[in-house]
């Protein structure tokens, strides 16, 4: 019981996402952060207000953190399908340490 609880807490803290999710996060970070920087710069320049640049940049970055850091469900839509544990039969020609088992 305690072990299960600990496992849950650890999972929550680690916030694992699947491979597709990781690819998506990578893309989001690169595209959106670049966009935030560009928007911050141009809005600030055309409004001639450097504080606006600072605030847009910081707020955009904070929003992006909220989007990519927690393990949202849409980062976990492609769970890896592992082989069943202790399968019924050893697959034919399974190679372990250069020896053919089975």
């Amino acid at each position, binding site marked *: 019981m305690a072990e299960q609880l600990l496992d849950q807490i650890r999972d929550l803290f680690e916030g694992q996402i699947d491979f597709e999710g990781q690819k998506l996060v990578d893309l989001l970070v690169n595209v959106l952060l670049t966009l935030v920087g560009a928007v911050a710069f141009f809005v600030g320049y055309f409004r001639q207000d450097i504080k606006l640049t600072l605030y847009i940049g910081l707020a955009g970055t904070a929003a992006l953190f909220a989007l*990519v850091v927690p393990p949202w469900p849409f980062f976990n839509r492609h769970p890896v399908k592992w082989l069943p544990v202790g399968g019924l039969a050893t697959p034919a020609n399974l190679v372990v340490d250069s020896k053919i088992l089975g």
Partner: protein
Amino acid sequence: MYSTVVRIQNTFGFFTTVAFVVAALIAATDLLAPRTPTVGVLKTTNVQVYGQIRVLSSSGPLSWRATNSPLPPLSSVRGRPHYYSSKKEEYAIIRFSLDADLSSLFTWNTKQLFVYVTAEWPSAGGSGSGQNATNQAVIWDSIITAPSADHLANLGPVAMKKLRRSAAGKSIDPSRGKLSIKNQRPKYQITHPSGKVAEQEDVVLRLHYNVQPWVGFLTWNQDADFWRWKTLRNNLSKKFALPAIKKKDEPK
């Protein structure tokens, strides 16, 4: 990107890159903004050289303000550089008037403008004497903050409120660059390592500025035009001579 910690690290890492690039772009926009500062008037209104300063214990060695106000025209003063010094030096107090339009120096990236006036005169021995060819000393300076940096101004609460209200709703306020100063008392009385400044000839006043941006390099008034940045013309006063030491009543 597998776990929370890795995502935080990678996102923050890329954020620093973006922040640096944006800062570099901001610094680069300074070059696009034309700088066309002009000086209308820079002249001395009143110069005094004092030879003897009575040292007042309460207000330090240079208490001529207390003993000699209002200041008579053009004078030099002599007194001690420190209250414990036995050396008597001459001090010049140069009043001036200044009319200048530095408003083009205020852009979105300007944090504050440092404006200062120096007095310059050729060295006694000239450039070949192993001394400095020109003596230069600051007599007055001022920090003009942009509205984005008003909170940094070294002011009391009342003056701060007034300053902020003067630019309410504005992100830049070029009108702050318009200087019109009449018969300004210098902030610093000047002397020379030799202790002698009285009757010095060929003294000129020069106006300088230093633009301090939020991001980017400090820039000073240039000697040559640089693309859209023009030199500060007419920033020298006419030559004048420091007067002889003003005689004071000898203390009994």
